């Protein structure tokens, strides 16, 4: 190779190299510009657009308030248009920009590569071949670095391990132990005797409205005779008092607050107020209820250690007797046209919630059984019924603890423990509000303004055709629940018409009309029945031989809640007060 041609060769390479290098620099510059542009674009999408969207939302609100303000409307429309333009322009730019970036980077790489290929010389290794020492050293390094990596990994594992999560097998075992561990420690739930000696839930033991013991038939609020105490209730509610030992519980709620009140049964002092705010799981859905239902229609339930409450917005919670909230959750705002009103029932250590909502074909109504002390759901299932307003009751029927429910279109009985359906009867339609009772071998279910049905309880499956013994169709109530002493069953309409049927055959024994209106369901104590009239009267009458009035006492306040009867004392909730009647 002669010297001259070598020089030209070098020159040619030099020119080629330079050209490639220049191309790379130019393309690199373009790429840098594009990166900046794309970043700006990205920031615009993440910062500018959201702020404009917010601004637009604000303007929309203003437009809603002043729909006639043309300049605001115009401004808002301009901003809306601008925002859309910006968005689509950004999307377009991102697309083009990334393509451009890719192409320019490709040019950078290829020109650099070619430049490099021109300039590169194949290596000429120098020095000696490897010595054994070098190779041994290399192997040693490899072993040491692997060991080091393993040590680092171990430290990392220990570090990570600190943030260990929840083990759900343990959680389930714990809950299982809480639910089923009763065998060892004795029952964690009240005995039948204890339940019968108290007024633990809506309408007392079995939801029957039957009181044990003797009660005053007359009192005088003005003179104070027969009134043990009277205490103001902070927030009104339609729910009834429940009583266990020396404690009386009430709930009250309005749109903002939901509260539980605990009173001393002896003196009427308020012991504590339980607050149901900040319940986890509640969305911001608005709750709409009818004024006559209110936000606190469902009655609480208590087992002597806990009191469990539910409100119209689906908040359910539990307090211990010291007033400490143990748990609270939201079941989702119930879709109920008048507002949710089903009281809670209790079976062993479980709360039963009849969570009916929506239409019967929507599969949104549920029956839920929850552990009273933890709130964990023991079982729940969907019911094919519409929204309804009666309460579930738990009662032993022929040796089986049974949950009775009434909702359009079925009266259904479930096994209280498992929730397994025993029977159902398709005999009630419309807006069901009366709570079913069990008496004299029949379950009585009421379809408002239409009929009271007596259902024999020895059936299984669909008993509509086979087990409805009789139907009474005279002046059927729409709100109040019936009462029965086992021989007769008595219904009371809102307008004050009392009808007495024979339990055995449904024959009407007598009827009587009282002047007044009634929302509270009647209670039987001994041979007398106690009626609470809405304007504020307590009417006592005997019923086994026609209606015979025993006494009428004036309360002087609107009274809509059903009363509680325990241990010689009557607890009546008026609109603003809680009265304790007794000697």
């Amino acid at each position, binding site marked *: 190779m002669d010297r001259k041609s070598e020089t030209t060769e070098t020159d040619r390479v030099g020119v080629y190299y330079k050209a490639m290098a220049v191309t790379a620099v130019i393309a690199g510059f373009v790429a840098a510009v594009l990166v900046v542009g794309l970043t700006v674009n990205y920031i615009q999408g993440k910062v500018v657009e959201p702020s404009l*969207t917010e601004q637009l939302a604000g303007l929309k609100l203003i437009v809603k308030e002043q729909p006639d303000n043309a300049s605001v409307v115009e401004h808002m429309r301009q901003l809306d248009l601008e925002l*859309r333009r910006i*968005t689509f322009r950004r999307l377009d730019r991102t697309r083009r920009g990334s393509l451009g970036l890719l192409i320019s980077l490709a040019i950078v790489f290829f020109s650099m590569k070619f430049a490099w290929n021109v300039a590169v010389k194949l290596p000429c290794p120098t020095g000696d071949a490897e010595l054994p020492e070098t190779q041994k050293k290399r192997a040693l390094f490899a072993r040491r670095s692997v060991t080091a990596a393993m040590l680092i990994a171990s430290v990392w594992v220990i570090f990570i391990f600190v943030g260990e999560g929840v083990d759900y097998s343990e959680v389930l075992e714990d809950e299982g132990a809480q639910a089923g561990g009763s065998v060892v420690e004795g029952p964690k739930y009240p005995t039948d005797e204890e339940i019968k000696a108290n007024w633990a839930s809506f309408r007392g033991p079995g939801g029957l409205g039957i009181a044990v013991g003797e009660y005053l038939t007359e009192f005088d609020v003005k003179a104070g005779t027969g009134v043990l105490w009277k205490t103001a209730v902070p927030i009104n509610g339609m729910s009834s008092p429940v009583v266990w030992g020396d404690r009386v519980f009430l709930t009250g709620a309005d749109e903002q607050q939901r509260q539980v009140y605990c009173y001393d049964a002896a003196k009427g002092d308020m012991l504590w107020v339980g607050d149901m705010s900040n319940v986890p799981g509640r969305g911001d859905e608005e709750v709409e209820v009818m004024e006559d239902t209110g936000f606190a229609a469902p009655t609480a339930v208590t087992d002597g250690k806990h009191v469990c409450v539910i409100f119209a917005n689906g908040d359910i919670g539990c307090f211990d007797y010291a007033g400490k909230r143990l748990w609270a959750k939201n079941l989702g705002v119930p879709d109920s046209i008048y507002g949710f009103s089903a009281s809670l029932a209790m079976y062993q250590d479980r709360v039963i919630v009849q969570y009916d909502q929506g239409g019967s074909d929507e599969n949104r109504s549920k029956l839920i059984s929850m552990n009273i002390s933890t709130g964990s759901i023991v079982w729940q299932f969907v019911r094919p019924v519409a929204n309804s307003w009666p309460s579930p009751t738990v009662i032993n029927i022929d040796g089986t603890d049974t949950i009775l429910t009434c909702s359009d279109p079925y009266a259904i009985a479930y096994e209280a423990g498992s929730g397994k359906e025993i029977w159902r009867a398709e005999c009630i339609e419309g807006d069901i509000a009366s709570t079913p009772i069990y008496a004299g071998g029949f379950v009585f279910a009421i379809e408002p303004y239409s009929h009271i049905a007596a259902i024999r309880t020895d059936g299984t499956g669909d008993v509509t055709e086979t087990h409805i013994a009789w139907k009474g169709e005279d002046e059927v109530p729409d709100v109040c629940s019936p009462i029965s002493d086992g021989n007769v069953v008595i219904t009371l309409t809102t307008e004050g018409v009392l009808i007495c049927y024979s339990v055995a055959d449904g024959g009407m024994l007598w009827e009587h009309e009282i002047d007044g209106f009634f929302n509270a369901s009647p209670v039987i104590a001994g041979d007398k029945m106690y009626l609470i009239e809405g304007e504020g009267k307590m009417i006592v009458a005997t019923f086994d031989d026609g209606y015979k009035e025993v006494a009428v006492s004036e309360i002087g306040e609107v009274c809509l809640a059903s009363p509680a009867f325990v241990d010689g004392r009557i607890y009546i909730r008026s609109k603003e007060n809680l009265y304790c009647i007794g000697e």
Partner: protein
Amino acid sequence: MADKDKNVSRRNFLREGVWGALLGGVGIGGGVVAVKSAKGDTVWQIDPDKCTQCGNCATYCVLEESAVKCVHAHELCGYCDLCTGYLEPEPPGLDTGAENELCPTGAIKRKFVEDPYYEYHIEEPLCIGCGKCVKGCGAFGNGSLYLQVRHDRCLNCNECAIAVACPSEAFKRVPASDPYILKGEH
């Protein structure tokens, strides 16, 4: 020398054995999986019954402009004048003014049909899949607007980024031969 040859041949034999075993393993394993999965190809789709209109579809897709778009089942639509999928809640007016429209990109076009009915049509290139109209329509209307993965856009990623972000597990793989979950068809 003979020893060395023996060594080499033993090593070769071992290597051959391993090689055969691996090839057989790959073949059998592949065959088993192939037999198990003779169900055909799948693509991603949204189950409109599970969709909660959280808005993730608009933001989580790997595409800058989401592959999820709103579709309109006209046969379910009530053609209402006061369409809660088209109009803001309590709109100041009932016209096409921007202050009344729910859609942030104006992708729903409203067309008068006959008194008192209006047709609503989705202009797909404008739709970003945010689901605002779906929420409005589902809450108060017939639910004729709903979100679907559009397969002309969807890249059918092995792991769909929206499916990962979906709070209600509404994304699922459906047969590619029937790639939509249309309302009113099941």
